[in-house]
């Protein structure tokens, strides 16, 4: 057909090309839209030259049966059974053959009986799957795949099937690779009013947080509770031992060194929790001019750990296997705590990529590992500590009143220089939000605004993104 203007964005192009084809063959365009045998051959020929992208952009937020536009035949898919009814084959010229097990299909049936579309819950119970899951027949009709089992005919939109294909491991790995985080060369910045009042601004900020792990919000008011307004733009507040909102300022006899004027070495907060504080927000309320020092330092742990993996793979391995206990023990204050959690510093996911990082030297307690592992641990620990301390990627910034440092506490290490108050006040107000929301809210907004960008890994210890 020679028309190469087919692209993913131009959703009706295939129809247009078919129409052009019909003109050159002196056939009325409308007859092409009916599944006559000539048309089918035409369409199949066409499909061999095009990609098999869906003709209509599907809004992933909508139930697959909501949209009423039906694609023209010729979407380029074919179905058949395989392996004596054990599997379904979906064939597409570009992506080749995709196979699905009968039991997988039965479990994930998308018909209204089996899938409650509003709540996105499957009503198929495990006991429905223990019987015979042999596929008796398979048919593609109007872009819906009908799969007949002995007691049910299951329905799946063909795009949905393609999107959830698993038989090609390269595709699975490629999807996982798309979630690889990016490393910022300098501190990403957002504007307070844009973040709070516009969806685009909110998206830009979330994107920085999701992709790069950090974003400095400027031009905000230096009021208390402003930090709540930003929190509302992502999810609900995660309470910690320090309460819902915490205040970072110097107090006598601090139960945490952040409440002193000492410097703070690179660390993450709250690692004695099952789900440590995710997104941390530090809003500067006061930072008087007479206060010397106290610059905030942020470091992306992810690339440094990658570097450790390349240069010292044995140390990397050690830090992935030996558990480290984190504790918070306080029997003096009114609220007493005795919290304990132990995991290795680095957790790997299904593909061997880093899926969680725990690094808090001040909160670390005495390791309890076999005798022959102690030296190995310390060699690796010292090496990584050195690499963090000497990394070029650190970003230093003195927070001015009104500015807010927001970062992913599961990925970025934070610290600060010591400071001298000189009679002035340095006061930050902060809170945490579960990092699960960093990916959820990003996806919701990305869909809403039609951005079609994939979330990056947010280091919440899941096996793959």
């Amino acid at each position: 057909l020679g028309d190469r203007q087919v692209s993913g964005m131009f959703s009706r192009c295939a129809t247009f090309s078919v129409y052009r084809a019909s003109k050159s063959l002196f056939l009325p365009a409308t007859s092409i839209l009916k599944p006559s045998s000539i048309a089918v051959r035409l369409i199949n020929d066409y499909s061999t030259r095009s990609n098999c992208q869906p003709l209509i952009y599907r809004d992933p937020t909508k139930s697959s049966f909501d949209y009423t536009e039906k694609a023209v035949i010729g979407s380029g898919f074919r179905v058949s059974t395989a392996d004596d009814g054990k599997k379904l084959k979906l064939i597409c010229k570009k992506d080749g053959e995709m196979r699905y097990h009968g039991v997988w299909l039965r479990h994930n049936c998308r018909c209204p009986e089996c899938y409650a579309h509003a709540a996105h819950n499957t009503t198929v119970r495990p006991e429905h799957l223990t019987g015979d899951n042999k596929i008796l027949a398979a048919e593609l009709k109007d872009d819906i795949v009908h799969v007949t089992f002995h007691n049910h005919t299951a329905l799946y939109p063909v795009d949905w099937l393609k999107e959830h294909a698993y038989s090609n491991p390269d595709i699975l790995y490629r999807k996982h690779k798309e979630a690889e985080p990016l490393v910022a060369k300098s501190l990403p910045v957002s504007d307070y009013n844009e973040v709070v009042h516009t969806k685009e601004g909110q998206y830009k900020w979330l994107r920085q947080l999701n992709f790069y792990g950090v974003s400095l919000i400027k031009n905000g008011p230096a009021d208390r509770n402003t930090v709540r307004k930003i929190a509302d733009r992502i999810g609900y507040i995660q309470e910690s031992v320090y309460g819902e909102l915490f205040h970072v300022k110097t107090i006598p006899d601090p139960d945490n060194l952040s409440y002193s004027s000492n410097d703070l070495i690179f660390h993450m907060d709250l690692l004695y929790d099952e789900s440590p504080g995710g997104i941390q927000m530090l809003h500067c309320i006061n930072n008087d001019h007479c206060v010397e020092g106290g610059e905030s330092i942020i470091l992306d742990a992810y690339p440094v750990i990658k570097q450790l993996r390349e240069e010292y793979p044995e140390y990397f391995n050690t830090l992935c296997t030996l558990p480290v206990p984190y504790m918070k023990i306080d029997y003096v204050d009114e609220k007493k705590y005795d919290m304990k959690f132990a995991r290795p510093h680095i957790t790997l996911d299904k593909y061997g990529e880093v899926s969680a990082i725990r690094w808090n030297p001040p909160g670390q307690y005495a390791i309890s590992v076999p005798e022959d592992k102690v030296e190995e641990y310390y060699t690796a620990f010292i090496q990584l500590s050195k690499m963090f301390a000497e990394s070029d990627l650190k970003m230093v910034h003195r927070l001015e009143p009104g500015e807010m440092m927001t970062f992913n506490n599961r990925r970025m290490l934070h610290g600060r220089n010591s400071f001298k108050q000189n009679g002035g006040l340095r006061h930050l107000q902060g809170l945490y939000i579960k990092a699960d929301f960093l990916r959820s809210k990003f996806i919701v907004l990305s869909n809403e605004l039609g951005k079609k960008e994939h979330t990056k890994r947010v280091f919440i210890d899941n096996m793959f993104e």
Partner: protein
Amino acid sequence: LIRHKMWKKLFARAIFQPSLRYCSLSYSTVASSCNTSVTEDGKKLHLVCDGERERRYHGIWLRHNCRCPQCLPVYSQQNIVHHSHLVDLKLANAKVEGNHVRVDWNSATGDHSCNFDIEWLKKYDYTTPGIHEERKKNELPLVAESLPTMKYDDIMSSTETYFEWMKQINFYGISLLKNVPTIDKHMIKVCEKIAEPQISAHQDVFDLIAVDNPTDIGYTNDDLYLHMDSNYFESPPGIMILFCLKFDDCIEGGESTFLDAYPVVEELRRKHPKHFEVLTRVPYINHRIHDSLDGLDAVRHKYSAPHISLDHHNQVCGISWSPHHHAPLLATEKEVEEYYEAFLLLSNMFDESPLKIVHKMKPGEAVVLNNHRVLHARNAFKTNGGERHIQGSYVNVDFFRSKFAVLSKQLNKEVSIKHMFNRSFVA
């Protein structure tokens, strides 16, 4: 305000014994006679106490865990030993002095000394053969033969009974609390005995009654088969409290079922080790997707984890079971086959387990369970004009563990905290 805080701290110090405050300071018992020496050219310290096996500690481990106020500030108890102090480190000398061992080191950054309490050293011993295995064994939870029960008035009035109740939840994973006043949201008082309620999408208290357009199948009259709540988070709700406010006699059905997943999972390991292994390796995806509705923000949560998580000793440290929220499995073809065989087998074992507890809740009863370990279910019910109203709330699992640990120390109870299945490698 600052002065007030200072006085409060001084006052607190006067009331509480030092041994309750810090793990590191003096455990005032009389130490048995001990001897110490430095070996391997300054690499290790040997500690031999009468009648006990020799214990060894690396010089670098000791230096990193120095207990002096320079290294471990008194109030914050945070480890501020810089990694540069651990380089070119050697033990210079070690000497037993009363209840502690005085240790001296040389390193690239200079000399340093510290006193280590002998009881602390024994507590953190890592060289006695079998010590790690023994500690692991002490963390293993217990399995209840029947539903452990407590009375609301008893836990509110007596600290001992309150402790026993917390112990039931930690050891057995479940406890039935009777005679709770049937006042709307009164179970917040039960939550507060543990910690502040964990804020979730359901706010602090959620009502399990049928609604139109439910965002979750919990809000229907349908049956729910055995599951855990909200496994689409990294940290699902920890302790779940189900409080029965109303359960009219005319209601048909609606019984609750509870099952401790831990023994069933261990049975799977014993009887079908291959299937057990698959469920520790092939992750499943749990999702929660809904659009904005009734004040709830739209969410696209997705979390992938294996059903069974193991720690470095191959002990089960986490269980995830939420079949209602399964997303399509993304795994290689071989893994899909293995997974479904194992998943369906375990599902069947749950359904047929003799350890299932079926209980029809009565108004005034509250079931407190560990949502990381105990599965819950309910039968479908017909209201017949009556009302079945259950309220639910969650408490963070880490706060529960903390409260239980603090309580046992304050009451001087020698109790090993059992694992809460929060995927920590230690309980």
